[in-house]
């Protein structure tokens, strides 16, 4: 199986598990999926699933799908849907995840007896689209400390491997620090971090798009000037066509795709804030990491 197909398989099966579906691999590569009507509607993006059209007045409470992630299995089973990179079903799962998981909440349990308190963070996932004559994109993941306003990129990476628990910290446990930044402020901190990264990164894509735009503009201007010399009235068209070129001018568009309100245990040692989550990961004698 292709590496991309493996990633899709892992992603879709995890989604189904979190959704609460009953998944059974009936034979190698073929998955039978049982969903309740509500779960099926969620998967189908709120659309009426196709089975309802033929279900009659008493539709079944369970809906069955057959998914496969390999083209070979799809060839063998007419009823199996091939879920692959770019497939419509994968797109549905992606949309469903976006619908369910744009805002989440978590905490990392505090180790007992260390005088810990919880510090609030926002884990953010920003999508950065580079638009020009072509289109590419990347993700920018960052954790923003809501008390001192610092964006921490490595922490965002690290937290994805830590055993975070759902919801806010327990009410009667360690105290929670009062955040100074709301989401808008925290996002601006993350955005400034992203701008700094863009300033440092290779801008060949934009250079190329801009050069192509300039060439096209020069060609059009020369053409319309020649038209005018020949006595043709092209002023409206000239303005329209030159304005159209702006649509392919290189630009970057940033969207905050998802956020997790996370509470992480910290303590203060000799005036320095220490992240307790990192203690087991740090070599015994190494100095505290300089997050900033």
């Amino acid at each position, binding site marked *: 199986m292709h590496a991309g197909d493996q*990633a*899709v398989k892992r*992603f879709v099966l995890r989604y189904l598990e*979190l959704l609460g579906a009953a998944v059974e691999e009936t034979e190698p590569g073929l998955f039978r999926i049982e969903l309740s009507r509500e779960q099926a509607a969620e998967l189908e993006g709120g659309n009426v699933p196709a089975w309802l059209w033929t279900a009659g007045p008493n539709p079944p409470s369970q809906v069955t799908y057959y998914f496969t992630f390999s083209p070979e299995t*799809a060839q063998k089973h007419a009823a199996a849907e*091939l879920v*692959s*990179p*770019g*497939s*419509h079903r994968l797109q549905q*799962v*992606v949309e469903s995840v*976006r619908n*369910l*998981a*744009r*805002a*989440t*909440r978590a905490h990392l349990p505090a180790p007992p007896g260390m005088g810990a308190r919880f510090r609030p963070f926002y884990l953010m996932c920003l999508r950065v689209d580079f*638009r*020009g*004559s*072509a289109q*590419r*994109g990347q*993700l920018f993941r960052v954790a923003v400390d809501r008390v001192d306003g610092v964006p921490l990129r490595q922490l965002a990476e690290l937290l*994805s491997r830590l055993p975070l628990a*759902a*919801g806010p910290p327990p009410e009667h446990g360690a105290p929670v620090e009062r955040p100074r930044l709301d*989401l808008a402020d925290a*996002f601006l901190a993350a955005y400034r971090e992203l*701008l700094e990264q*863009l300033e440092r990164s290779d*801008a060949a894509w*934009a*250079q190329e798009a*801009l050069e192509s735009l300039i060439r096209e503009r020069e060609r*059009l201007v020369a*053409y*319309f000037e*020649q038209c005018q010399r*020949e006595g043709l009235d092209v002023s*409206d068209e000239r303005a*329209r*066509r030159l304005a*159209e070129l702006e*649509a*392919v001018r290189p*630009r970057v*568009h*940033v*969207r*905050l*795709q*998802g*956020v*997790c*309100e*996370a509470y992480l245990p910290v303590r203060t040692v000799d005036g320095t804030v220490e992240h307790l989550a990192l203690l087991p990961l740090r070599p015994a004698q190494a100095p505290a990491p300089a997050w900033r």
Partner: protein
Amino acid sequence: MIETDQHTAGELVVSSGRGPLKIFPVTVPIMGSQAIGLFRLPAPEQLSDEHWIGALYPVQYSASCVEELAGLLEQPRLPGPEWYRLLVEAEELSLPPGSTELLAPRHLAEVWRRVGVIPYPHQLETARRVLFEMGGRAILADEVGLGKTIEAGLIIKECLLRGLARRVLILTPAGLVWQWFRELKEKFSLSCGMQRSEYDWERTDLLIASIDTAKRSPHREIIQRLHYDILVVDEAHKLKNATSQNYRFVNSIRRTYCLLLTATPVQNDLKELYNLINLVRPGQLGTYREFKRAFVADRRTPKEVDGLRRLLSQVLIRNRRGPGSVQFTARHVHAVPVELSQEERALYERVTAFVKEGYRKGRNTYRNVLPLITLQREVCSSPIAAAITLEKLLMKEGDPEERRRLEELRALALSLHRNRKAEVLEELIAGLGGEKVIVFTEYRATQHYLRWRLEKAGFSTLGFDGSLSPGRKEWIRELFRRHGQVLVSTESGGEGINFQFCCHVVNYDLPWNPMRIEQRIGRVHRLGQTRDVSIYNFATRGTIEESVLYLLYEKIDMFQTVLGELDTILTRIRLHDSLEKELADILVGSASREVMEERLARLAERIVRARDEAREADPLDRLRLW
């Protein structure tokens, strides 16, 4: 709860929960009708100020997105961290690839597998070239039947998947709006709107509209205010005159990408080609004066062919059929002669005498003799069809002698209990072993009669005609595909709906206009047909049907003419609208059979000569763009 009848269309009525609600007439596409309904307008995205990176490019963020998420975070219960991790994975999977490999084929693989679409290599290559080499502006000039709509659909889908487009406008002749809707829905999972009211222009991102509606006020002004990411114009040869209203309207639409679809970007004059190219990429060929000086030897003959070819290949793609390119399945044409019974022959002879007499009696304009011509043709189709026309003539006739003759003819037609042609049809269908068949007839009366006969003989039949709504046509097509064996269709019903899943076509009676035969056959013999197609042409011996078949089949080999070619031929010999008239004059107005045959032969020669000239003189052929 909002009562819809308290509000007028377009009125902002309420703001509740997640955004404003607006009331609009909503088109229900399947039924093709309208209903009043409520829908939520997506709030326009609020973007931040621009921050420039060097002097190269600006960066903006979506402020509305941040605001929306802030609202969500106020909820006391939210999903846990495992969902956040899944969201990150989802975002990684949905990033557009940097490569120039098309995304659409993978995205649509499952859809295509289910509906049986196999994209042809030339279609994929065309989509790739348009997007990555032509900057999304091109004329798709494939020969008829090679799937220009598929190519355009692929390009639209690819742009949507890559985030390159959001607002798409497809302008077509009114008769093709439904076909575009169906093709894009079925083959590309694109749910487009079909323009019905002036509100549709702004509220629908993917819209299919009739160009004739779009160019009129108030629609034109609304369209001119908008910016389209993709503009598609089907049958774009109707834009080849730069002074026409169509051309000026399309030229005034602001767009980023532009696709013009036509099989005949040039017919009579290279200026037509220049005009189309200028719509797609102004100045590509210079000003017209420069173009003429550099590339035009005479109206139809290019010069500096290499240079012109290079410039055209940057904006025009033409795929052709034939060895080395796109191959169609074979057509097998069978003439099915039908011997009339004595009673049927008697009716035919008496009707013919009546018609010829009427023709000679000074009813010498085509309009006046049209009912007679129809009668003459109907008597070959079915006596019941002839009887109905005789009834109509009788109602109009004041002369007692004429009335008596009409009554006699009508009585004779109704007295016939045997129909040889229908018997032969039953035998033919029975011999096809349950294969699906489309039977074309020109007459509704014949259609009803045949369905009655065939049902009685145990065949399951469906009727298809021009009176059906688009939704109902679609439904009947689906019924036929799944359950039906015989579809009896009248002419108008045959336009625009395709039946590649069927490979037997019966021309129960022959239209006199070859273009309509081409349209009939084109319903089944097109790209996507995987089997050879059999065409059965019924003709009653010793009648005008036989003469028409002789002309179309033997003389000009009409049934093997390349799709799309005939349109050009008829235009060249200026017979596009008058071929039926000329045929009527020959078949009914000739003094004797010998004269008729001689005149038919002369007409055939004209058509064949025009075809040969068209094949030799196509300026695009000379440029060898493919």
